[in-house]
């Protein structure tokens, strides 16, 4: 799986492309860990190019989520392909991950609420 990094308004965005399984999940965990080490605590995963995820890939995401909580950071996901969405629905992981239909919506959720 290919991974590329971007940053917008303080949110580290990881674009994933390919299949999220044991090896790519492990690589993703390493990548996120390095972001934490750089004090980047707001992480967004764009899954638009991920068409397949297996149990190991889910395990990696759950593990990343736990690590994010432990570090008081925030993790968001967006653009789930239909099969990936189906797997998230079946496993009810939709209840523990912050999932947005689009990256734009996810990033706007990081913006502080306007005050009067």
């Amino acid at each position, binding site marked *: 799986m290919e991974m590329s990094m971007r940053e917008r308004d303080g949110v580290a965005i990881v674009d994933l492309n390919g299949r999220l399984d*044991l090896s790519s999940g492990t690589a993703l965990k390493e990548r996120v860990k390095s972001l934490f080490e750089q004090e980047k605590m707001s992480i967004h995963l764009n899954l638009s190019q991920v068409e*397949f995820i297996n149990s*190991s890939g889910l395990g990696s995401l*759950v593990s990343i989520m736990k690590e994010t*909580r432990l570090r008081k950071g925030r993790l968001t996901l967006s653009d789930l392909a239909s099969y990936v969405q189906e*797997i998230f629905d079946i496993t009810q*992981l939709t209840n523990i991950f912050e999932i947005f239909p689009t990256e734009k919506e996810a990033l706007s959720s990081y913006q502080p609420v306007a005050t*009067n």
Partner: protein
Amino acid sequence: MGTVIDRIGELLSLLQSPDFYEREEAVRELGTYNEDEAVAGLVMAMEDPDLGIRELAANLLTQMQGDIASRLLIRFLGHGDIGTRNLAAEILVKIGSDAVGPLIEDLDNDDYDIRKFIVDVLGLIKDPRAIEPLCEKLWDENENVACSAAEALGEIGSNKAVKALIVAIERVEDARVQAVEALGKIGDPSTLETLYGMLDTDDPMTLYAALEAIGQIGQKVSVPKLLPFLDSKDDCIGETALMAIVNISLANDGALDHDLPLDKYSDFLFNGIRNRNRKLTEFTLGRLNHWNGSDVIGSLLDVVDSVDEENHKRISEILEQAGALATKLILQKLPAASTAAKLIFLETLQQSVDEEMARKLLPFAVDQEPEVRQKTAQVLGVSGWSGAVGALKELAADAVGHVRATAYASLGWLVAENEIGFLFKGLDDKYSDVRDAALGALIVVGSPRVVEMFSADLNCDNIERQRLAVSALGKIGDPEVVEPLLNAINHPDASVRKLAIIALGRIQQVENVQPLILSLSDESTAVRKAAASALIAIRGEQAVADIRFLLDDEDVWVRYHAINTIGELGSERYAEYILPYLDDEQDVIKIAATKALAQMGSTEAIPRLNQLRQDKNKDLAEAVVMAVSDLEEIQ
């Protein structure tokens, strides 16, 4: 044969009948005539001893409308019986603009009660023709009529009345408060200077009215005029001024450039939320982004069950932003909170729950309310704390299905590998949502032991369980599932074979494709189609040679699927396989071949396709036109 007038005369006599049904029937029939006598009869019926008949007459009069009805009804505005009087007023309001002329004509009625009712009715009809006559009534000799005129002008809400109202404020002491209120309802900013002038009054009623009116006009520029009243020793004045500021704030999308002494009015604001005052709720929640000390958050927690669902979400967000302070206070208030509040609190805690917090939430796993137990199960799962497994297993045995379902899902999120046997028991639950949750949990865990147990299930004696097992193995999708899925290709049930093949196609990393090639000859068309797709997904173009023979399958839909599958590869080199099918007996095959050749970019097919442009089958002709258009672009 009598005339209509004769018949109406008979009906009018029947209105005096002691028989209820005769009177009711007479009223109903009178309602079918447009003659003035019939209208008069209906008006008479408004004095019937029976309420039902009075209301029937009133409804019929409303439908008839017209000048006569209005004139007759106006007489009833002075009726001794308050019920009849109110009914007449109600009908006149319903008649609406048709009643305005007669009402205005009678505005100088000698009876001041009738004048007052006419003024009230005109205010409710809100017809601009009444503005000028009502302005004159501000100087009526009777103070009630003058007050009602001011109120009516406020109801109509036209700034044409502003000048007269301002004069009335200066000269008509009795109607001053109502005139000030009317200016507020009209909302014309040009009246603000007059209203600011009223803020020096010694009369508290006028002051309240002026403060409220300034608020209703909703101009930010007024706020500095209102601020000094927030320091008033009189709570009512201070609260009225704050309410005015609230209205101004809401009229300006919440924007306000002034610091307000909100702490002083904390009780007023939060009582407003408690009393479900929409404006105070909106204003207060809007200020909580930067007004969030310990007392404030504590007060907010006390009113969470007084707001609607949309505001629950806002409160959750506010509490989330308040962070550790909110968490600490929530944990203190949680045990004594109402069920609704507990659910909101748990939702908030879910955003930041960690092991330490999860420990403190364990008592709520035995809360008497199932919704609370269910939410607790979810929060414990989100916490990621493996110490919660014991409590979640208890919840997975709860009497309520929804609680069990959430507990199973949470066990999955905790990736409770030591509880695989327990999770499998959930697959036998009587409720499908519990079974689904247990299945989801097993997919997340997905360990070799889970694969082993599902593989064993493929050979159990329950066909539903076999199908669930093959589906689960496919969703787990790890390399360990490939072997059992390949074995499942030989399963006696076609749906199991099909699910296994679809899963293998999705997993793709399959070295031994022989079982898939064999299943291209499966007796089930669904299996043959699935096998073709899976082989292409796994081997790409290499699989074309294997699946090519399906182009001549006995089943038309298998042939159709094979053409589509090869077409989706988009490779022109296979066009020669597809071209002959433009001459197939079946139109559906011709259409599939047309589309496939376009996908392949086969310009060689254009001449033959052009011959099909005029085909009598419209779907085929349309597909051909589109295909040729696409191919010509390539050329």
